[in-house]
């Protein structure tokens, strides 16, 4: 098949959204790292110049990705997965440490972060495993294998330490849900999270009172013919209370102070203004500064290169994880809304692309791509605007960083390649 027909069949809407995000991202990187001394955008000694090079490399990667045979990815999924596991293992010996995390291979001009590529290969491997005719996701044994595919790279990444990246792998569970993993798994996870948060905010006693009230309301409004499942209800209640009690113990004994601070900041648990001030200057500094920068942008923003907090470098890591705060300060509510909408459209578009796949592998991989992009987008912006605790992962296509951009680009375009090939499946 000729490359020309690939370009004809590729989903240009997705490509357009991709380039919009990359360009907007680069403009904001330029602003965050801008220095009056080096105004030329082609200065490769500056971070924005480097990012331009990464964008160029990514475009080359797009052509290579699209040029490869579509069934290459399915055929070599396992091999690529194993290679990436080896590359993660190799970090323990050859890894380069940057900012406390041994996550990189040093290639001189450019440091490569294998975990970015492990995300792709894991998504491929998971799709391949699940699409196997032998696999039945309803069977616990197969569920376990699927989880293992996800967990192995995650556990190799945790000790780097890079818990943020490890967390990303868990998002692939959405693929399993799409393929038939019972949804009550999600219900249980959600309930657990809810109990965790409410216990921290209100304490176990109020959680117990709340549960009792819920049961009472349920008993009052139920139809008289409905038979009450007494035993399961009591079991859920008891387990919930036990869980709630354990939350307190875990929070106090297992968590370290910095974790506790992050949670108390997130859930606004600290009310003492003095301690709040201390938190703002220490653990909460990033969040506080990024919130303030976004807030100060107002509706219209301060304008390109006019963000005073951006210029003053008030927000640490602004060109990487906190790039969204630059959007907020310089482009205001209009800018931030546009970015959120672009991500929303991109993800919804990808869902519709995934759903139109006739080939199981393509669809499952598509879901993998969506899950990975979604969790990055959700956690990153959530953290920057202060609705989630601080977890350091980049904003796809936006944040400064070569491996990240390249990884997300390849991830997306493998799926676009598979999608462009979907009609060929019948030939």
């Amino acid at each position: 098949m000729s490359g020309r027909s690939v370009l004809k069949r590729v989903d240009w809407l997705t490509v357009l959204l991709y380039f919009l995000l990359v360009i907007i991202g680069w403009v904001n990187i330029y602003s965050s790292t801008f220095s009056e001394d080096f105004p030329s955008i082609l200065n490769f000694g500056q971070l924005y110049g480097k990012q331009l090079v990464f964008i160029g490399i990514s475009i080359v990667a797009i052509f290579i990705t699209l040029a490869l045979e579509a069934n290459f990815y399915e055929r070599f999924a396992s091999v690529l997965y194993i290679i990436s596991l080896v590359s993660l293992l190799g970090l323990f010996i050859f890894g380069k440490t940057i900012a406390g995390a041994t996550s990189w291979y040093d290639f001189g001009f450019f440091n490569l972060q294998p975990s970015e590529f492990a995300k792709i290969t894991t998504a491929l491997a998971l799709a391949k495993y699940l699409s196997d005719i032998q696999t039945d996701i309803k069977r616990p044994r197969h569920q376990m294998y699927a989880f293992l595919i996800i967990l192995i790279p995650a556990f190799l990444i945790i000790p780097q330490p890079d818990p943020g990246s490890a967390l990303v792998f868990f998002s692939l569970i959405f693929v399993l849900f799409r393929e038939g993993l019972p949804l009550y798994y999600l219900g249980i996870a959600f309930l657990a999270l809810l109990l965790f948060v409410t216990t921290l905010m209100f304490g176990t006693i109020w959680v117990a009172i709340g549960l009792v009230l819920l049961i009472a309301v349920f008993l009052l409004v139920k139809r008289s013919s409905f038979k009450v499942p007494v035993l399961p209800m009591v079991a859920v209640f008891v387990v919930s209370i036990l869980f709630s009690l354990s939350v307190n113990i875990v929070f106090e004994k297992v968590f370290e102070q910095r974790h506790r601070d992050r949670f108390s900041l997130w859930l606004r648990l600290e009310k003492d203004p003095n301690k709040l001030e201390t938190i703002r200057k220490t653990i909460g500094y990033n969040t506080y500064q990024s919130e303030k920068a976004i807030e100060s942008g107002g509706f219209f923003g301060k304008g390109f290169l006019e963000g005073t907090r951006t210029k003053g470098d008030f927000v640490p890591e602004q060109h990487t994880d906190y790039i969204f705060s630059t959007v907020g300060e310089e482009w205001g509510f209009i800018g931030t809304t546009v970015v959120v909408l672009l991500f929303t459209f991109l993800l919804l578009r990808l869902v519709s692309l995934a759903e139109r796949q006739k080939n199981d592998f393509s669809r499952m991989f598509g879901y993998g791509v969506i899950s990975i992009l979604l969790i990055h987008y959700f956690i990153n912006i959530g953290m920057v605007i202060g609705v989630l605790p601080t977890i350091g992962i980049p904003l796809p296509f936006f944040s400064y960083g070569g491996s990240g951009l390249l990884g997300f680009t390849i991830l997306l375009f493998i799926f676009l390649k598979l999608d462009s090939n979907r009609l060929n499946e019948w030939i």
Partner: protein
Amino acid sequence: MKKILLSSIIIIIGITFIGRLSYLQIFSFSPNQVLEDTAIKAIYDYPERGYIYDRKGRLLVANQPAYDVMVIPREVKPLDTLEFCQLLSIEKEKFVEKLRKARVYSPRLPSVLVPQLSKEDYARLQEKMRKYEGFYIQKRSLRYYNTTSGANVLGYISEVNETDLLKNPYYVQGELTGRTGIEKEYEEILRGRKGVKFIQKDRFNRDIGPYKNGILDTLPEQGKELYVTLDKALQEYGEKLMTGKRGGIVALEPSTGEILALISGPTYDPSLLVGRERSKNYSKLHYDTISKPTWDRAILAEPSPGSPFKTLNALVALQEGAIKPETTIRCYNGFYVGNTLRGCHCGGGIRNMNIGIYKSCNAYFAGTFRKIYDKYETTDEGMDVWSAHMKSFGLGNFLGYDLPTGRPGRIPDKAYYDRFYGDNRWSSSYIISNSIGQGEVAATPIQLANMTAAIANRGHYFTPHILKKIDGIPISIPEFTKPKHTTIDKKHFDPVIRGMSDVYTKGTAKWLQIPGIEIAGKTGTVENYTRIDSVKTQLTDHSLFVAFAPVDNPKIALAVFIEHGYYGSRYAGHIASLLIEKYLKGHITRTDLEKRMLDKTLEHEYAKPYSGEEFKINEYVW
């Protein structure tokens, strides 16, 4: 369900994010961000405060540099502390403590280590300064007084306080503002307008260039030079005469209403409230509740006006047609109110208006006062007519001059007495004391001077004011340049002025004549009381004097009020006479009179009520 799960999550996340962003960027957004933004620092460029000159262009107030030793704790390198402390002339412990405080305040920002070095210390320190890293000298501007007089009228400046900051958004912490007197009244003219530069800062508070390339920056606007109506020589001479005396003197130019001198005794050197000793001196002055040097008696004291008030009663009686200048009244060495005789010092006999004024006959004016009331059906009506006449002389209410403090004085009317005694429960005998300027009437020295100016002008006055020129351009404020007319016709003034002139030729002030100058004046001796251990006790009379000169073309009108100076011609009369001569001739011919006034003090008189012993008042010997 499983197909729409992810789409729903994507949409919910989108909505949550946009909700949170609208909370942050629309609801929490504060439009006042330039000043609140931690990334932008406003650096102010202060213009020099305007100088103050007197009416003849003689410098009163200027500025002087002061030198603060500043420190940036982070940049301090190990140093020879002992030598440095010697240079700064402070103790080592104090130095260490100040350095510690500066470090607590901020290691990166400058703090004042030693404020306001003298020029000599500065000269000594300057060349050695570069040896001490982290320390530098910052110049700032203080007021410099080219006179030791006029402390109260010139006023002083001090740092803005919380109230100022709330009232006027112009100021920021640490700036100076006029606190009293001219400095307060004309604060905005003297101050000018500070320039501002917005500087973009990074998170370490380092400058990284102008904010928005400086489009919001402004240049400072110079403070303007103020020419005030005071006569420096007269003001200084008056204060010299006031040494050891308490009271207030106001001299006006009747043809313009310009304040030539505004003297309050005791006073202080305005330089005391400048420099390193400022707060110590301020406490000393502020807490002197006995002699009250910061209380400007010229505009705040409200004594009964005493006999000078008789001239107004005469004018009102003439205007109302109650008497003619020739009308006579018999003085029985006093006058009867009911069956009680009230005393008079004029010697007794038949009095017409001329003698009544120059001998200051109480009986004559009590009779005149009665005649005013008798014209009207009821005392109520008479009271209000009389009150309106009096108020047309600027009495009984704030005069409207351009100084930040003042008192209204008091001219009673029907409502006032009704409040006191009840409606219809008082009659003319209750209020007879007003005829001789005792009783319920009260006036500040500046009101008395203004009243005298109105007589000198034969029926009109200009609101007293202190501002003459701004940057050399004469003011044209209608409030000050349009005459205010009294309710008395011009023709009635001549007989009264003749009486006042005779005060000098044959009356109560005949020893105080100035050769070659015809003066019109009126003495006043004001009874006054205080409470000692809650017993109402009479003290020595206040000495009061009003005068204007020359009679035909008045150049100066003044009121002199000396607390407990006994009779009018004693202290007040002497001082008034000397001031008139000084102003009109420029020098004093009667040196014996001058010497007496410079030497005499009233401290012994002021000590009496605090002595705890029995004391005599109104002692004849002085």
